[in-house]
């Protein structure tokens, strides 16, 4: 049990991104090279000359964590041939939801299609947190952000959350999974499995952000559990043996009401006060039900 992310980084108290990295690296071990999209994780861990990373780590820009990972993988292949070596470090690309769902999607798609041996980990806190909580295509229906504010003409974000794991899986790659920092055994097992493939894999990690979602810092883990127990986020995996067929890995015995999850967060407060926004609440419930049906957890 060695920490590969050192303390002293500047993440907010209760930050899910660092929890995600610690769990991923605990599973991957020290023979790992990481790339990182610009974002909270990059900024909080590497203000020059400080770094919290005990494994090699590289950042260059926001939209290209996957392209960076491609370059590293290609370099290792070439240098192994040139030098007669057989070094195969794990190559893990980290990006937030902005660097994955939105600005990083093209580079991700390209890298997945080219088949590089790499694991792309998206820590999804459902908004652009580093610039101060703006909407992302990962933000869920009804969520307040600073660019999807609630008001007399708006109930927060209108659109559905982009199904990023399905998009990754549609590239017909060996392994795609969803995970949540509140379920470390499940997450680590998926990291190990992902790294066992000689090709690209994608891990979508649910990462509740106390700062952006407006909940107390000690509830980061509880919020992730609540998301899974209400069916808002489903933990599953998919392989190319059975394309687009999710296999659920954590099945709640029965689902708790979605409103329990919504009411625990300030970003959804406007759905309940000053009066209940039944239209949006219904949309959210329908969206959850639809997804649960797709994964086979609801008839």
């Amino acid at each position, binding site marked *: 049990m060695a920490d590969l992310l050192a303390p002293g980084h500047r993440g907010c108290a209760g930050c899910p991104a660092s929890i995600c990295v610690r769990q991923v690296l605990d599973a991957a071990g020290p023979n790992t090279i990481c790339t990182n999209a610009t974002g909270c994780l990059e900024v909080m861990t590497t203000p*020059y000359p400080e770094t919290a990373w005990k494994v090699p780590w590289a950042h*260059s820009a926001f939209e290209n964590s996957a392209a960076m990972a*491609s*370059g*590293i993988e*290609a370099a290792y292949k*070439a240098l192994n041939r040139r030098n007669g070596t057989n070094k195969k470090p794990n190559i893990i690309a980290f990006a937030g939801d902005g660097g994955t769902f939105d600005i990083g999607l*093209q*580079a991700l798609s390209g890298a997945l299609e*080219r088949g590089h041996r790499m694991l792309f980990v998206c820590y999804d806190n459902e908004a652009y947190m580093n610039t101060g909580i703006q909407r992302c295509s990962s933000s869920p229906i009804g969520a307040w952000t600073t660019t999807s504010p609630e008001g007399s003409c708006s109930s927060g974000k209108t659109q559905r959350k982009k199904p990023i794991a399905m998009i990754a899986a549609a590239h017909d790659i060996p392994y795609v999974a969803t995970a949540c920092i509140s379920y470390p055994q499940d997450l680590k097992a998926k990291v190990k499995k992902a790294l066992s493939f000689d090709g690209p894999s994608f891990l979508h990690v649910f990462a509740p952000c106390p700062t952006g979602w407006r909940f107390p810092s000690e509830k980061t883990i509880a919020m992730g559990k609540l998301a899974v127990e209400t069916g808002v986020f489903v933990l599953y995996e998919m392989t190319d043996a059975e394309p687009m067929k999710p296999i659920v890995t954590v099945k709640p015995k029965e689902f708790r009401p979605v409103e329990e999850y919504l009411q625990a967060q300030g970003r959804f407060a406007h759905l309940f006060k000053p009066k209940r926004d039944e239209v949006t609440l219904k949309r959210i419930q329908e969206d959850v039900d639809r997804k649960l049906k797709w994964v086979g957890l609801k008839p």
Partner: protein
Amino acid sequence: MSRKIVKGAEAMAIAGKLAKPDVVPAFPITPSTTFPEKMSEYVACGELPNTEFVPVESEHSAMSAAIAASATGARTCTATSSQGLALMHEMLFIAAGMRLPIVLFDANRALSAPLNIWGDQQDSISERDAGWIHFYGENAQEGLDLMLMAFRVAEDKRVLLPTMVGIDGFVLTHTSEPVDVPEQKAVDDFLPQYKAEHCYLDPERPTTVGAFAPPEYYMETRYQLDEAVHSSGPVIDEVFADFEKRFGRKYSKIEYYGDRDAEVVFVAIGSLCGTLKDWIDEHRAKGQKVGLVRIIVYRPFPFKELKAALANAKIVAVVDRSISLGYGGPVFSELAAAFVNDAKRPLFKSFIIGLGGRDIKLNDFENIYNAASADLKAGKVNEKMHWVNINKEML
């Protein structure tokens, strides 16, 4: 050495092959496409057995993957042009800031809009502030040679900067010319394997690469980078000299052509200098004196060499194949500024020529020469920038 007749873009690919790069991430764009095509072919046919060709999905990812590969310790090169270089813009600054010796072949081409695939130098001149070393060739042979030298300069421990080599789109990239192709052994001796000492990604020696610098560090990083670009000058001279010793072709940061004591001197970059040299030959045959300074190394800006070369000039006609809109010719403005504090300095006159593949003809230089001579005679420069060979009826 063997002699081959190839198009310019293929000559660049041949140089790329001779350099035995470890990683080539590239995305096709006219008129540089021959480069990724040939490189992938060399890899597919086993001519580059160690090289990894990465067919990326965009130029942005090409430069991103190049940065990562170079940061890992791999010799890395790519090629692009125009919109592709513009899409790389963000990553060009990053490659330099991270001090990564990436080599890039740029097929010089106009920028949109309107879209135009033909030659001018707007694309790379627009990237002059990025911290890259800039080489410009006049023909395919120079492109090939400069490309080989670019690797040696970029990877020199005293330099460690990305380097781009530009040759004009179509006029050079798609024109067949005879080129001398050096022997692989001779290139291997000239260009030893790249051994990354300052930047690597190795689990046995963990590094953090690409950290962000807060205000108390950032300015020093820019100072250091600016100093690095400036001080690459002597290394470039050294590499040019060594190349000449081994391969017999002489290079310098600028080339002077014509009469050393000429009062009217042209300054230009790239293939148009070939046409201009022909005009100068005709002109001199008539007994009139004229000179040309061709810039081969644009960054670091060759202040010393340019000042020495223009010491006798009375008027300098700067012929730019790009334009800083709202100002004028980029080379003109930089060159004039280089002389601004000198008590004795020539007059400078700005000409814009050959944008978006507009033909450049012998007669154009006659017109430029006459305009410059008239100003010289008047002792005063007509400040209005001259657009050469422009059809005013369309305006």
